């Protein structure tokens, strides 16, 4: 059979099916990439930031017997990294979802609430310390696990409500990392968070990259 595969498109121009397939793939990949609020490269950078941040804290406490607290010098560094993280996420996500109407649109207020939750969790630390709770909990287990569990579950619930299952899953998994870290004790919890978040976020970056290609 001598089939004709050139199909006449609009205005009589031939539009070869192979060209159509290539154009469809290319357009789909480009659109997914341009509309993605959390591109793989950003998630990967955040994975390394989490590894370095939590890892540095673990290095500062691993030799403490009895457990005291992470090195004070890490606090401004952590805050600085956190601020850069928030700014980067806001700028990238807002640019990607410019012109988008609906649940996939990035809303800075949501991120602001998540940040507020983080600060709120740390505010409780002061109250715990004043109440005489042990160092291992106030400066170890609680600050390592609580932000991940509280903010993670909150963000997961919000994204599930928006039917953004990928982000809901990732956030829930972060909460699980926080919960698991509690089993490692006040020193080990930082290492569990470092490695757990690093693996989780790299996996998330890989999934996003694959979705963009597919």
């Amino acid at each position: 059979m001598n089939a004709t595969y050139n199909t006449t498109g609009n205005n009589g121009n031939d539009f070869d099916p192979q060209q159509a397939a290539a154009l469809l793939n290319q357009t789909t990949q480009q659109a997914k990439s341009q509309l993605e609020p959390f591109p793989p490269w950003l998630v990967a950078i955040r994975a390394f930031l989490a590894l370095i941040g939590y890892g540095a804290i673990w290095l500062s406490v691993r030799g403490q017997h009895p457990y005291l607290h992470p090195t004070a010098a890490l606090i401004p560094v952590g805050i600085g990294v956190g601020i850069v993280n928030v700014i980067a996420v806001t700028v990238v996500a807002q640019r990607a979802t410019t012109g988008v109407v609906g649940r996939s649109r990035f809303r800075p207020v949501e991120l602001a609430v998540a940040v507020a939750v983080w600060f709120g969790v740390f505010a409780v630390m002061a109250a715990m310390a004043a109440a005489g709770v042990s160092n291992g909990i106030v400066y170890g287990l609680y600050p390592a696990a609580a932000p991940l569990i509280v903010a993670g579950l909150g963000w997961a619930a919000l994204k599930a409500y928006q039917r953004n299952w990928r982000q809901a899953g990732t956030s829930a998994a972060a909460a699980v990392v926080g919960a698991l870290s509690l089993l490692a004790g006040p020193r080990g919890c930082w290492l569990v968070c470092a490695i757990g978040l690093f693996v989780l976020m790299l996996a998330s970056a890989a999934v996003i990259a694959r979705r963009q290609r597919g």
Partner: protein
Amino acid sequence: MADDGLDPLIHVPTRLRIVATLAALPDGDALSFTRLQEMLELTPGNLIVQLRKLEDAGYLSSEKTRSESGQKTTVALTSQGRKALSEYTKALRNLLGGLQTEAQQP
């Protein structure tokens, strides 16, 4: 529908790009005309013509809203449009698979 099963409404480079771009959004989400134009690098006139054809066929819907900064138009792929793209993709795959099979014959 053409003899090869390819939807002639979608099987035009510009309209294919429009439909594929809107399909990248989750079901129910819409994209502003301005952003769509910027992503596809089309002139407003050309984009309007193609959008109208797709809307007349029920493949996409448009909505105009008024805000303080002026009028804003957003477009979204309808469920019919998503289904049409899915069928178009399937037909394309079948067609190219047939092409490959023929090429392999001695």
